[in-house]
C-alpha cells in the first residue's frame, strides 16, 4: 500500500536510515535491545532510539563468544557489532530481561566498542509496590546517567514533551492496530510489520508526522469490513522480527492482532499524567502485557492472550518463537492449554532465524488455516 512506502524503505535499510539521520542532524544514535528501553527518556535526551535486531549475515564472529544454544537475536546482534556494522551507534542500552540478554550485555561490554554502555537493570517481578518504586528509581537514574553521558542533561520539560510525543505515536499506532482488527482487509500484515519496524528506528517526530495522518486516512477509507476469511492472532516471541505475515496471508487469512514485543506490545499502553513522570513510565511497564521473562502473576499472560483472542474474534492463534527462547518455552504449554479450554485452536512454529526457504512453513500455515 502506497501510504506505507516510506515505512518499507526505512525497514528495508534501517542502518542506512540511521546513518543518514546522523549526517543530517548531527545527532546521536542509541541502540536498544528490547521494548523495555524507555522510549520517552531517549527522546527527551534528543537521541535516535534505535532497536537492533539480529543479523541477516552469517554468524561467524559471535561464535567465538556465544554458544550455539543461544538464540539468533543474541548471536546476530553481537555479530553485527563485532563485524563493525553498527558503526553509526554512539551508545547502547541493555534493559534486563532474559538470561541471554543479561549475558550478552557483559560480553558486549567486554568486547565491543560501540560508544557508551548502559545496563538498565529492571525488576523481573512487576507485581509489587517495591518493584514499582525500584523501577521508578532506576528510570530516574537512567535519565541522569544518559544526560551525563551525552553532556546535555534531561530537563523535566524535555521529558514531559517526549512523553506527549510517545503517547501520540502509541495512540496512532494502536488506532491502526484497532482498524486492522475491525477491517482486516484495510492493512496487510507486511505493511503493518514495516510500520512497526520503522517506528522502532525512525526519528520519532518524523514517524509521528506520518503515522497520525495515516491512521486518519485509513479510518476514513475503510469504515466497514467485507472480510470473510480466517482471522489470525499471532503470538510468541519473535525478537529478531522476521516478516512472516505475507506467508500467513497468502492463505487468504488475515492477521488481525498480535502479542509480540516486536509488534503491538511495543506501542501498547499510554503513560498516564503524573507529577512524577518516572513513576508514570514505570507504571506503564507494569500495566501492559509483560515479556515472558517478566512476572505479572502466574496466569496473567495466558489470561491476556485468551482475552485478546476473544476480543479480536480470532479463529486461531499462531505461536512463533525463536529457538532457545527459554521464557517463552516455559509459558507455551499452559497458554496453549488455556486456549484449548476456550476452544481457540493454535499452532506453534519454532524458528532458528528467518524462514527456511524449504516451504515447510507455508505447508504448516496452510494446514493450520484449512483446519480452522
Amino acid at each position, binding site marked *: 500500500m502506497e501510504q506505507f512506502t516510506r515505512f518499507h524503505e526505512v525497514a528495508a535499510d534501517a542502518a542506512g536510515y540511521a546513518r543518514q539521520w546522523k549526517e543530517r542532524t548531527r545527532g546521536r544514535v542509541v541502540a536498544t535491545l528490547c521494548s523495555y528501553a524507555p522510549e520517552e527518556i531517549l527522546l527527551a535526551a534528543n537521541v535516535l532510539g534505535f532497536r537492533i535486531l539480529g543479523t541477516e549475515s552469517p554468524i561467524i564472529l559471535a561464535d*567465538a*563468544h*556465544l*554458544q550455539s*544454544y*543461544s538464540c539468533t537475536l*543474541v548471536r546476530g546482534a553481537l555479530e553485527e557489532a563485532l563485524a563493525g556494522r553498527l558503526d553509526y551507534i554512539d551508545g547502547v542500552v541493555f534493559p*534486563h530481561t*532474559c*538470561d*541471554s540478554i*543479561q*549475558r*550478552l*550485555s*557483559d*560480553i558486549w*561490554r*567486554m*568486547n565491543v566498542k560501540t560508544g557508551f554502555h548502559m*545496563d538498565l*537493570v*529492571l*525488576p*523481573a*517481578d512487576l507485581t*509489587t509496590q*517495591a*518493584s514499582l*518504586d*525500584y523501577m521508578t*528509581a*532506576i528510570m530516574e*537514574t537512567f535519565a541522569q546517567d544518559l544526560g551525563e553521558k551525552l553532556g546535555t542533561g534531561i530537563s523535566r520539560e524535555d521529558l514531559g514533551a517526549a512523553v506527549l510525543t510517545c503517547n501520540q505515536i502509541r495512540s496512532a499506532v494502536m488506532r491502526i492496530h484497532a482498524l486492522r482488527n475491525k477491517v482486516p482487509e484495510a492493512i496487510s500484515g507486511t505493511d503493518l510489520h514495516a510500520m512497526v519496524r520503522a517506528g522502532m528506528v525512525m526519528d520519532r517526530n518524523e514517524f509521528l508526522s506520518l503515522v497520525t495522518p495515516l491512521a486518519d486516512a485509513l479510518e476514513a477509507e475503510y469504515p466497514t469490513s467485507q472480510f470473510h476469511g480466517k482471522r489470525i492472532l499471532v503470538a510468541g516471541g519473535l525478537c529478531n522480527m522476521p516478516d512472516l505475515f505475507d506467508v500467513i496471508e497468502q492463505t487468504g487469512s488475515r492477521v488481525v492482532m498480535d502479542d509480540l514485543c516486536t509488534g503491538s506490545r511495543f506501542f501498547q499502553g499510554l503513560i498516564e499524567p503524573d507529577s512524577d513522570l518516572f513513576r508514570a513510565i514505570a507504571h506503564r511497564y507494569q500495566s501492559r502485557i509483560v515479556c*515472558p*521473562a517478566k*512476572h505479572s502473576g*502466574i*496466569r496473567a499472560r495466558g489470561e491476556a492472550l485468551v482475552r485478546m483472542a476473544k476480543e479480536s474474534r480470532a479463529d486461531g492463534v499462531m505461536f512463533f518463537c525463536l*529457538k*532457545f527462547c*527459554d*521464557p517463552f*518455552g*516455559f*509459558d*507455551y*504449554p*499452559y497458554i*496453549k492449554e488455556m486456549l484449548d479450554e476456550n476452544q481457540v485452536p493454535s499452532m506453534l512454529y*519454532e524458528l532458528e532465524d528467518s524462514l527456511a526457504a524449504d516451504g515447510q512453513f507455508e505447508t504448516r500455515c496452510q494446514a493450520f488455516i484449512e483446519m480452522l
Partner: protein
Amino acid sequence: MSTKENARDGEKERTKIRCVKTMKDIMTTYYIDAKTAKENGKKVAWITSGGPVEPLIAMDVIPVYPENHGAMIGATKMGDDLCAKAEDMGYSRDLCSYARADIACATINGGPIGGLPRPDMLVCCNNICGTVLKWYEVQARYFNVPLFILDTPITHTDYSKAQHRYVADQFKNYLKFLEAHCGKPFDFDRMEEVGRLSLKGQKLWQAVLDTTMNSPAPMSAFDAFFHLALIVTLRGTQIAVDYYQALLDEMNERVSLSISAVPREEIRLMWDNLPVWYRTKWLSDTFAGHNACLVADTYTSAWCSSLRYLDENDFFNSMVEGYSRIYLNTGVDAMAEEVLTMVARYKADGLVMHSNRSCKPYSLGQYDIQRIVQERAGIPVLVMEADMCDSRNFSESQIQTRIEAFMELVRASL
C-alpha cells in the same frame, strides 16, 4: 583372595571418605522428615538453591530443593525419561533439564524418591537465573500454592543503592509472607541463631574446600559435588555445622596422612559450572587416569561466595547484599576475576569448563572467561559441551577425545 587384592582393598578402605555414610544417613532422614511433614504438622516450602533459606528454618518450615532433587535425578540417570516426559507435556527440549525433570516428576511422583513432598508454598529467588522464575510459576499453577518471589537484580558492574533498597523491601515482604502462611509471628531471636549457624556452616564448607590447597588434595571437586548437599539443603542448622566440622576434621586427617583423592596426583585442575551428574564417576575416573585431580570448582564454592557481605551480628539485614551478590548474579568479567583468583589459590594447571546447555547464565560468557584465563593465568582451558541432567546431550566419545587432547596440552605446559 591374593595378597595383592587384599592390599588393594585395604588401600581402598583407608582412602575412602568416612563421612559419606553420615551424609547419606542425614539426607535420608531429611527426606523422610520432609515427606512426612504433613503428618507431623509441619509446612514444606520449595525453594531455589540460591534462595534465603534461613527465614524458613527460623519459622520451622521444612525447605525442599527441586534443584537438589534434579541433581539426584541426574545422578540416578533418571533425567532422560523425565525430561522426555516434560517434552510430551509441551516443554521444549532446549529448556533447563532440572526444570523439565522436576515439572514432569511432580505429575507422576517419579524419580529416585517417588517425588518431592507437596509444597505448602514456593519461594523463588532469581539470583541464579531467570529460569527459576518461570519454573516456579509452572509449579505454582500446578500445586495451586502461594509463590513468593525474591527479585534480586543482577550486579553487572556495581551494586546500586536502589537495588539494595528494593531487595531490602522484599525481605520485609518475605517475613510478612511467612507470617501469613505459617500463622505465627516471625521469631527474630531464632532468626539470628539460624543466621549464626548458617555463617558457621558456610565458613566450615569453605574450610573444607580449602583443604584442597594441599598437594596432593585430600578430596576432589567430585567429592565436593556430593558433600555439597547439606550446605544447600540444611544451611542454618546445627546438623550442617556438625557435619562440616566432622568432614573438615577428616580432610585435615587425610592431609596429615597424605591420603589423596587421586592416588598419584600430578596435575591439578579446576572445574567450572554444574556437574554432569550422570557421568561424575566416568569423568572422575577419566581424569584420575591421567593422574589429574579436579581440586576446585566454581559451583560448590558458590554457596560461600558472598560470605564477605554477611554479618554475624546483623544477619537478617546482611542477607540483602549477601543474596544479591552471589557468584552467578555478577558480570562475566567479575566471574573471570573470581576464576583467576581460584586458579592461583588452588594452584590449578588447567581449567575444565562444562558448557551446560541447561544453564545460560552460567555458560554464556564462558568463551570469554576461557580467553581471559588462558591469557592471564597462562593455563590451558577445555570447554566441553554437555548438560547437567539430560544425558542425551552428552557425547562420551567426543568428550573423551577432547579430554585426551587437553591433558596432553596440560602436561606439556607443566
